[in-house]
């Protein structure tokens, strides 16, 4: 095989994705920037007027900011977990989705923590966390875990990008501005795909894969502990960490499926993202949704069965004021995906994507159901007349910032796809190399 030629071919194939931006693409980016700008305005309003502008009050002190935080970090964690596992898993089809997962992992880990910052009353004192640290606090653990995880994921992402950066750097015919070429040169850190280099790269990739699997579990466990280590009736649960991990996987796999669908449609990558990817991911999602349903049931069943007063009060809130949210999150959001994914005949690309969308929305609502009703149902009754202190409802500031977070996720995703092909070229070459090697061994054996 002529390596140089093959590389050229691949660069040519993917260059439209990297070099050009269609009118729709520009509109898309413009729209996302507009949403982010609205979010930034909301942020300024919040800084200026204080948290009074949010729907949070003395009882429900954490609102949709923390829900978004759990949600994004959950996606990130499951992305890290899945890509770490995929790395050790020898299969031909993993190459097409690995980059989607890696990008998703890093982006959601960048955006998620921003939401926890929005929750903090005194951003100007953030450095106190390092000036006066108390390591008994789960928040301290969380900060350490997320920062370590973020750095780990960045390193891992760079490792997977390096061979492709090298290919792009070497593609002289690619029509890109010189600053981008310089950037590729810098980011490729002199990688020339020599056997020693590739061996070395593979070795550290192995290490980092193992690292990010472990870190993902630790980070998400610590996040679950922020809730489960308190005495609150809805939170103080021993299965919470595991429940969060399963729930994170549930939303993570769903986001992967949705991203695959969108990228496949937009960039016409039917050759790379095949039905088998959707079926595979769909079956993984089925298994996880069964587990997730099982955990959800156990969590509430135990509360209902043992009916401690505080638990009963919580269940009354959940099945009273939050009836439809509860049904949507914990019935519809679990059962619909299970039904779609369970029957072989229903497993089409579109239906699997639909199931994933239902799962993601259900997951977000499930977080809401975990955070808000618990805070509205403390041990001692809330005896207050101010409705905003009794019940939480998010204000436009919180919604604007939430949508800005989602828009930022899409925007960065779009921009990263412009930076490197979403299908790793180096992965395709490596796979072809292996196939040739195998057939060569085979033919050698025949002779």
């Amino acid at each position, binding site marked *: 095989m002529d390596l140089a030629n093959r590389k050229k071919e691949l660069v040519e194939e993917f260059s439209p994705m990297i070099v050009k931006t269609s009118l729709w693409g520009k509109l898309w980016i413009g729209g996302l920037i507009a949403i982010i700008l609205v979010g930034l305005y909301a942020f300024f309003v919040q800084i200026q007027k204080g*948290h009074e502008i949010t729907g949070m009050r003395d009882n429900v002190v954490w609102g949709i900011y923390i829900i978004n935080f759990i949600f994004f970090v959950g996606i990130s964690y499951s992305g890290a977990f899945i890509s770490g596992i995929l790395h050790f898993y020898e299969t031909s089809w993993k190459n097409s989705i690995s980059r989607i997962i890696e990008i998703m992992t890093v982006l959601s880990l960048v955006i998620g923590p921003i939401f926890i910052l929005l929750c903090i009353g005194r951003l100007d004192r953030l450095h106190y966390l390092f000036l006066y640290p108390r390591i008994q606090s789960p928040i301290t653990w969380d900060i350490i875990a997320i920062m370590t995880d973020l750095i780990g994921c960045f390193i891992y992402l760079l490792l997977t990008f390096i061979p492709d950066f090298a290919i792009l750097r070497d593609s002289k015919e690619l029509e890109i501005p010189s600053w981008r070429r310089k950037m590729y040169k810098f980011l490729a850190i002199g990688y020339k795909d020599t056997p020693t280099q590739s061996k070395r790269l593979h070795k550290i990739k192995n290490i980092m894969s193992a690292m990010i699997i472990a870190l993902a579990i630790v980070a998400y466990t610590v996040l679950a502990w922020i809730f489960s280590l308190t005495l609150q009736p809805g939170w103080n649960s021993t299965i919470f960490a595991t429940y969060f991990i399963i729930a994170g996987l549930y939303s993570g796999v769903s986001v992967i499926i949705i991203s695959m669908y969108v990228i496949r449609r937009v960039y016409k990558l039917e050759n790379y993202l095949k039905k088998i990817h959707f079926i595979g991911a769909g079956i993984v999602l089925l298994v996880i949704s069964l587990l997730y349903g099982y955990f959800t049931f156990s969590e509430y069943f135990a509360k209902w069965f043992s009916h401690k007063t505080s638990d009963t009060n919580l269940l009354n809130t959940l099945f009273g004021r939050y009836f439809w949210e509860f049904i949507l999150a914990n019935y519809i959001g679990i059962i619909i995906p299970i039904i779609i994914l369970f029957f072989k005949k229903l497993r089409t690309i579109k239906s699997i994507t639909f199931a994933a969308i239902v799962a993601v929305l259900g997951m977000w609502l499930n977080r809401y159901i975990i955070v808000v009703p618990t805070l509205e149902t403390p041990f001692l009754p809330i005896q*207050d007349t101010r409705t905003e202190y009794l019940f939480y409802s998010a204000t436009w500031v919180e919604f604007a910032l939430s949508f800005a977070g989602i828009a930022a996720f899409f925007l960065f995703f779009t921009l990263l796809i412009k930076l490197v092909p979403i299908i790793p070229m180096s992965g395709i070459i490596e796979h072809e190399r292996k196939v040739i090697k195998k057939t060569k061994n085979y033919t050698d054996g025949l002779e």
Partner: protein
Amino acid sequence: MENNKTEKETDRRKFLKLGLLSSVSVVAGTSLVSNLASVDEKLQSEKIRLLTPEGKIVEVDATNINKYPEAHITPTESRKGIPNRKFVMVIDLAKCNNARSCVESCQKAHQLDYHDEFMKILLIQNNEEDAPYWFPKPCFHCDEPPCVTVCPTGATFKRDDNIVLVDNNRCIGCKFCITSCPYSARIFNWGHKAKFDNKDIPYSPETGIPGTEGTVMKCDFCPDLLRQGELPHCAKACPMGVIYFGDKNEDIVTNGIETLRFSKLIKDRVGYRHLEHLGTKPNVYYLPAVNRDFPLERGLDKDEEILERYKNVPFIEEFIKSSKI
């Protein structure tokens, strides 16, 4: 006074300049702007009236009246606690008739707004058959305080004298302590208030004055008064003598009217701590509401707004129904 004004003016200009210069550091810039906005608002401090021998009634700032300890207790000093003391509170539920004097005097002393209450009076009815009772609820200053455990910066801390305090200069406003307190004892400064700018008295965690936007507050057992050998504001203000306070080391508590042995009082009256099973080990004890001094209804003679709070209590539901019929 005039001087003060011009000083503020120039300060404000300085702030503006600073604000413009530091627009790069977004957060700092805007918090300065928000500080600016409130300088103009009149400081609404508590006034008290005095009569002069010349027959004039004059109003004086209550802050001039509040007797703070001679020596200012800095945030660092306030972490130590009063030596060899273990403060404890006993609340006699049989005597409480929702007079709300404790709430009001506490609010006055801590410069709290109408709705901000360190001491809350709940109406508790444990089940539909049970007799409801008024339940004054301060911070319990637990021996195993979950709020202190979860604080990432040590802004809230437990002292040797049992008191759990908040240092508003240290608090970053993560609100984790609020979610971890099973007694809902903590409240948050959600927005900026003009009174926070009042720098007449230097800030001390022992008084919590002036407050700070974006930080947590709660009942502090009034260590500034304790240092002067005086009872906390709530205990002093209660006309029924509901709130006993004292040093557990001395084993003596007082409500200002009678002074009793703490251990004997708890034993004789079967004192208990609220939600004991949570393992927080509160330092506030309750004496059950048996042989009450007043009928519960005595506490219902209150503003609509106050009564409205209790409308979900089964007893009050019944009460409203029967009074309508």
